[in-house]
């Protein structure tokens, strides 16, 4: 038989935090992916919420395109607060 679809698994450890990628697994459909993810990735109370995404639905930048994607940020250090010199006596800034 053909391989079951691959799902990327995201777990949120508690409310107020974001879901974080923990790994992947194969399952025939979404609900079973959630159920299996519970068995595989939360055996030690690592999370209270699981989110699954079909791996094929993810589009990502490629490492080869690194420069065209991220270079524009390289020469814009003025985007960081530490770029600015402020006299020591100025408070709450």
């Amino acid at each position: 038989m053909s391989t079951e679809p691959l799902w990327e698994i995201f777990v949120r450890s508690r409310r107020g935090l974001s879901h974080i990628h923990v790994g992947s697994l194969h399952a025939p459909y979404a609900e079973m992916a959630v159920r299996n993810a519970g068995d595989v990735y939360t055996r030690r109370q690592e999370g209270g919420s699981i989110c699954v995404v079909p791996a094929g639905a993810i589009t990502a930048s490629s490492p080869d395109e690194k420069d065209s994607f991220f270079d524009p940020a390289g020469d814009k250090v003025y985007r960081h607060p530490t770029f600015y010199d402020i006299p020591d006596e100025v408070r709450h800034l």
Partner: protein
Amino acid sequence: MNSTETDPREAAFQDLIDADGRVEPRDWMPDDYRRSLVRQIAQHAHSEIIGMQPEGNWITRAPSLRRKAILMAKVQDEAGHGLYLYAAAETLGVSRDELLDLLHAGKQKYSSIFNYPTLTWADMGAIGWLVDGAAITNQVPLCRCSYGPYARGMVRICKEESFHQRQGFESLLTLCRGTPAQRAMAQDALDRWWYPSLAMFGPPDGESTHTGTSMAWGIKRFSNDELRQKFVDMTVPQSHVLGLTIPDPELRWNDDRGHYDFTPPDWDELRRVISGDGPCNRQRMEHRVAAHAGGEWVREAAAAYAAKRRAAEATA
């Protein structure tokens, strides 16, 4: 050879490795690096799931509900570890089905240790203490392996293995503090598992086929002999707490080296067990194949249900 040496992608790859960077699935990598990783990760994944069998053997006969619950949790962990590792291997462009087929056809290997039988309850303690102890010694450096998905899987696995080793030690300690018969059973387990555990680190450095390239590529961080020594140095003092005797008359502290001297395992035996002639090779494989075939109807039913749902969604 010259063509690969001048390949700028290979130079960039080696620079990344030398700078202790991590390789991710979509990066370019040399074919041999990919092949080497697939071989190692698959063998590791197979070991996790075959490793469920020797311990699964004792679940129904655990001496208390507490020990039974612990053993079931441990065996379940091994299944999970197998899954993390198959998933890591799949990022290299192979499928889990393909790897399982290779295992079932005897074309990929698993750790030699799981071809030994678990004869008494004390073996559960000895496996946790020694086999998982040796596995941890091997695996902790793999958390810094140059291939990102493998390293991340190992971080999860190492966290869970710590429970495995501690429960094993505690179980043995309970026997060692029990009746003379229980102490004798614990000693017998150590006698049988000591050398096979030492053999888990693989052949001596001079005879290891993969160590050189694996180290140059940052897949392995220490040689087989270095890891074996580290394991012995760690384990001998633990045996004193148990009050058990390691079955090696040559075992003694060497002040000059700052390590224990010890008798290496029987390499001929290791070769025999790896090549299929261990006490349980055939049994392990038959059980594995039967379990896989026996689960086929479940996978078929799940796939049929998924197809039915897709059809219903399409017409809705």
